């Protein structure tokens, strides 16, 4: 029983980290209707930049600031070079463009900063904490806390600030938003910048867990089921979806895997997510679209 709870808690905590990646998707999808596949490449780019700066001897906060600045520059460039010329194109075209973008970002990052695996030490001690009979990874706790704070901050940002409210207006009806003088393109830059910041946080946490390397881009594939379950448009959904996916992934690996004779982690959460969809087609918190003929 203790082992079951331990697995569950471990899964939930890594679920928070999945949610972190998923939030990057939600932000951009809500504001611009773009399903940004380059989010994984952005995570890699942020983590690689940070590690390279740290290797040059920069202090933690300074390295983080410089990386953030680079992510913001990237966001502005993406809006100018990719999004603006593709305005009013179909969503699938934009999706493909972000795929191309992910090639460019991955290639650039590795070209400039090398493809070798980097260690990333955030200075978090990873000794397990004992809670009664249960062992919990301290690193996971810190990571989950960091993700939780980020989510709270984002919620405040979107619900209280002027920028956040304009973003919600755009998500609701881009034309109406434009007609009352909301500057769409500036907001896109801001959203991509914020998504870059989220990618930085995700890159740091994931990078220190599994090393900064190309496989960081694959965390995107763990984030997709989170999006299916939680809905593409809801930050709360991303959190709940992340928790479900994290827990299901961990439990399935222990209890379902042996039954089928192998690791099931590549597909189990996807099948679960599809099963979810059959019950709630717009995800747990997604908005139900009303169609007019």
């Amino acid at each position, binding site marked *: 029983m203790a082992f079951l709870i331990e697995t569950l808690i471990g899964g939930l905590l890594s679920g928070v980290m999945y949610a972190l990646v998923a939030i990057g998707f939600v932000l951009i999808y809500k504001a611009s209707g773009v399903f940004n596949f380059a989010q994984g490449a952005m995570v890699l780019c942020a983590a690689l930049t940070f590690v390279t700066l740290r290797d040059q001897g920069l202090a933690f906060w300074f390295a983080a600031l410089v990386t953030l600045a680079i992510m913001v520059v990237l966001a502005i460039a993406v809006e100018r070079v990719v999004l603006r010329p593709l305005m009013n*194109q179909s969503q699938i075209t934009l999706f*493909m463009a972000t795929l191309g973008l992910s*090639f*460019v970002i991955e290639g650039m990052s590795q*070209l400039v900063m090398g493809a070798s695996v980097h260690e990333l030490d955030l200075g978090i001690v990873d000794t397990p904490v004992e809670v009664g009979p249960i062992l919990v990874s301290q690193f996971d706790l810190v990571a989950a806390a960091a993700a939780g704070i980020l989510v709270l901050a984002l919620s405040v940002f979107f619900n209280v600030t002027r920028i956040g409210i304009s973003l919600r207006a755009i998500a609701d009806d881009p034309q109406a938003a434009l007609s009352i003088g909301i500057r769409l393109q500036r907001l896109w830059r801001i959203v991509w910048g914020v998504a870059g910041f989220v990618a930085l946080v995700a890159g740091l946490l994931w990078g220190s867990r599994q090393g900064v390397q190309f496989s960081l881009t694959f965390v995107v594939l763990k984030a997709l089921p989170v*999006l299916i379950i939680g809905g593409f448009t809801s930050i709360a959904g991303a959190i709940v979806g992340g928790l479900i996916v994290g827990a299901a992934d961990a439990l399935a690996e222990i209890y379902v895997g042996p039954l*089928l004779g*192998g690791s099931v982690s590549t597909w189990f959460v996807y099948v679960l997510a599809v099963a979810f969809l059959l019950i709630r087609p717009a995800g747990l918190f997604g908005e139900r679209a009303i169609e007019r*003929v």
Partner: protein
Amino acid sequence: MSSAETEAAADFVAPGAARDWRGLRRALPLGLLLAVAFVIVPLAGTDYWFNAILIPFLIMALAGLGLNLLMGYAGQASLGTGAFMATGAYATYNLLLRLPDIPLPISLVLGGLIAGAVGVVVGLPSLRIKGFYLLASTLAAQFLLEWIFNQYGWFSNYSTSSSISAPKLAILGQDLSSPVGRYLMTLTAVVAIAAVAARLVKSQTGRAWSAVRDMDTAAAVIGVPVARSKLSAFFVGAAVCGVAGALWAFAYLGTVDARSFGLDRSFQVMFIIIVGGMGSIAGNFIGSAFIVLLPILLSQVSDRLFGGTVDAGQLANLQRIAFGALIIWFLIKEPAGLAALAERGWRRLRPSGTAGPERGSRPGNTGKIF
């Protein structure tokens, strides 16, 4: 106005002899192209051309055709292409292995049909969801099927290595394992399937697909059987992809290997139809030429420019950047796909008096599926 409507209208425009004459004129370039492909290329081509360029180009165009029927014509986005191809490859392999009496072409077709049946199951969620949700849910099939083929030895006849060599290719005692033989086999399959597909998209089924793509709620209101259309699109699309997968394994690689049908393959095929043109048969070939040739071209160019001075890893990164940037550039320049570009160029070349209302698919109208 939906493209289905314009196509339908154009079918009634030119009755009788005039229509036949125009059909002939339109068929002429295509006939010439086929003559070159079937007669001149086998005589003139080198083994390198067959193995490295022509065979993969044709097979990827076929896979693109499969996805294009599903996504470009019926509007059902899918990233399960790799899984459909793998299903076709493994199904054909097992048919050849376990039922050696069945001739190769029949096994190919049966393999395709099995992939189609799997496609219907994968397509079931499309009855409830659409757009990116559907796209993401087809990933479940992609990962699950890839895992199954690796996990259970029965599919690979308990081979100890993860890749299994394909049986010898022969039709009616005629050995087809030479590069020319494999090229001709691939070409025949691709041309036959493309011809069927070109008819199919103008049949009632094809019109229903377009209606569902343009707006499924509206299609349901006017009495198009939406569920049947979606599932039949999944069946046909997956079946065509399945044949492409079998050809990929047998005519191109010579081995059946689940790793060559991963998610990257699915993305690659989707690139083909986006770059080539959604809702266009010819677009698949243009897109495939782009996707197959570009990496070869890029590696040639970078070898010439930086050969010896830059290490292989950096070269790969440079190619990655160039590939991604070109994709974005083409999407910006021609969001409706290269087929639309080619069609515009073609129309400009023709004398203006004979232009008339054009027939056939018009990629420009069909780019927006969700």
